[in-house]
């Protein structure tokens, strides 16, 4: 073979065996998850068909995952960067480790959700797919190259499609096919965009400054714009930014509630963790981001107003929160507000879904009006729900307020600095949206407390102590972060969140 001699001696320059073993060390969290997936597969094949073993194994895998990431975020310090395999493909720093801690913690909470009976037992496949989502999200957080982005996005997507179709109902199958067709089309569009990026610049990694090459005078103006739009659509689809949000309501309505809770948190946060790198690479296109943020939160909030199904409403609410998270991308060079908002969002959203899951299992209710009068039956859970809904609206005394305060004051400061009318516009629209969201979030607690019950109550499932404790923990977290936001902010800022 003639061509082997001239090209094949280049790898030795950048890839040495020492760097391989070093890099594998920094890849430990992902390797843990991979091992966990393999062990789970073996356990599913093996004659031990015990649910407890499988669940125990998952906790035994994801617990260390969180701990290792905690250790990495401590060791890596403020600014240290590990470029794995010297290939510009995966880059680990303290910030990425902290994102992964958030992902791991929310996965642990999701795993504690009791599953509805429509999902077959033993639940080995369910745990397997959840771990797959976490692995994909984890890789997306450290991805720095479009090949890795593609692989990790697909890892999240394929497992998500399967999780949507997990319940043995026709609606769940319908939602899964819709999700799949939209999602696969978005991926295909993104891949085509990446191929043009590669063609024009010759690179597909996010390290260099190829944007200048993309925007040279050789091509007409619309070419870079089109390429960037095609690529962004794949990621924006995953984090449900309008106009790529159409899959959300159907999927949220028909998927088992624990899985929905996972959808609203893990792919979204991983997507935003990557999005901030992508936007940095694009050198902060503030105007486009602002327009998308306003569009997304308006679509989400106004559509949520006329929903009758709680899960569908929460779907639109999660779109609206994507809009707020997009707003957090408006601060060039600083991701700490985004991280704070994301952390608070995890607590309040998982809490709300935990309660929705509780009412769905206990009383078989899914419509908003069916919640009427439930405060008298379980006052404690009623109070929890009030706290979470208030937090999602963004009112004191909850951490939702603190997060929104950071967000809006940040936008205002940006406006004073740059004087761009668009930022003022975003600020005003953000406030209007927060007010509108109050109207639908408060409907459930209002009905619960002040209205009478429609029919007598049938209790279908046993009361779960675990659920109660988990709720209490999340409520305390949401309240505590209002009074002591500096605890979380201090932890965020001990590593650099600047770009």
């Amino acid at each position, binding site marked *: *073979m*003639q*061509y*082997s001699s001239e090209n*094949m*001696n280049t*790898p*030795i320059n950048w890839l040495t*065996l020492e760097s*391989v073993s070093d890099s594998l060390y920094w890849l430990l969290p992902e390797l843990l998850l991979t091992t966990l997936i*393999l062990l789970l*597969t*073996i356990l*599913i*094949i093996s004659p031990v068909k015990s649910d407890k073993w499988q669940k125990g194994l998952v906790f035994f895998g994801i617990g260390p995952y969180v701990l290792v990431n905690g250790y990495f975020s401590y060791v890596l310090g403020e600014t240290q960067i590990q470029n794995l395999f010297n290939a510009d493909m995966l880059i680990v720093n303290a910030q990425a480790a902290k994102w992964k801690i958030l992902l791991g913690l929310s996965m642990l909470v999701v795993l504690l959700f009791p599953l509805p009976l429509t999902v077959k037992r033993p639940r080995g496949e369910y745990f397997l797919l959840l771990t797959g989502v976490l692995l994909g999200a984890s890789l997306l957080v450290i991805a720095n190259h479009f090949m890795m982005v593609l692989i990790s996005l697909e890892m999240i997507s394929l497992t998500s499609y399967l999780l949507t179709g997990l319940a043995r109902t026709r609606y769940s199958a319908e939602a899964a096919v819709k999700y799949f067709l939209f999602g696969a089309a978005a991926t295909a569009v993104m891949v085509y965009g990446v191929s043009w990026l590669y063609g024009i610049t010759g690179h597909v990694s996010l390290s260099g400054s190829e944007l200048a090459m993309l925007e040279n005078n050789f091509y007409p103006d619309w070419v870079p714009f089109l390429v960037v739009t095609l690529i962004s659509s794949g990621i924006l689809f995953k984090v449900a930014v309008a106009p790529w949000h159409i899959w959300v309501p159907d999927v949220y309505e028909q998927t088992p509630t624990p899985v929905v809770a996972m959808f609203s948190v893990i792919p979204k946060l991983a997507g935003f963790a990557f999005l901030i790198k992508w936007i940095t690479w694009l050198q902060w296109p503030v105007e486009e981001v602002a327009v998308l943020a306003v569009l997304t939160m308006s679509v989400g909030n106004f559509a949520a107003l006329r929903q009758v199904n709680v899960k569908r409403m929460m779907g639109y609410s999660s779109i609206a929160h994507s809009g707020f998270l997009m707003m957090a991308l408006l601060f060039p060079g600083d991701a700490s507000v985004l991280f704070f908002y994301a952390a608070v969002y995890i607590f309040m959203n998982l809490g709300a879904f935990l309660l929705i899951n509780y009412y769905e299992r206990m009383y078989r209710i899914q419509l908003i009006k069916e919640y009427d009068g439930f405060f008298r039956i379980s006052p404690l859970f009623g109070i929890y729900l009030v706290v979470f809904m208030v937090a999602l609206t963004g009112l004191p005394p909850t951490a939702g307020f603190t997060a929104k305060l950071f967000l809006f004051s940040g936008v205002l400061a940006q406006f004073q600095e740059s004087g761009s009318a668009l930022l003022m516009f975003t600020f005003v629209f953000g406030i209007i949206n927060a007010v509108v969201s109050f109207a639908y979030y408060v409907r459930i607690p209002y009905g619960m407390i002040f209205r009478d019950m429609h029919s007598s109550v049938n209790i279908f499932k046993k009361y779960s102590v675990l659920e109660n404790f988990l709720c209490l923990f999340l409520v305390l977290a949401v309240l505590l972060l209002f009074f002591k936001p500096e605890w979380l902010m201090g932890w965020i800022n001990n590593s650099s969140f600047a770009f």
Partner: protein
Amino acid sequence: METGLSPFAEVLLFILAAALFVFGGLITARLIRPHRPGEQKLESYESGEQPLGDAWGQVNIRFYLLGLIFLLFEVEIIFLFPWAVVFGDEELIRETGGAWGWLTFTEMFIFLGILFLGLLYAWSKGYLDWPMPGRKKSGFSSPVPRSMYEAINKKYDS
């Protein structure tokens, strides 16, 4: 392997040899075999079932399952090709003192092991067996004898 030919010429030679092999066999057979057509010999499958209807009919769903499993494993093998190019690279092996060979070897066996685990999973779930396990005939026997149903059918038939 230095033959003085360009890589594409080698591929062309392969294609020619393959074509020669196939058509050569067919033509030789045609030349030396006796030619006695009969009614049964002219059927489209000499020893199979007669095709009925068009090709777009319903196919048993298990064909799709097997097809999907085959598709996955077949396509994963694509990763063996780039690996095979660098695996035997003598220069790399010499410079790393043999460690390169072991590294790539282990890597590929991990990859194949994961694939094999997937195959085991499909096997243990019974997707590879033709009669699916766990689909037994129900043990339900009706207390109403079959003849009564037939009598009722006959009564309302006309």
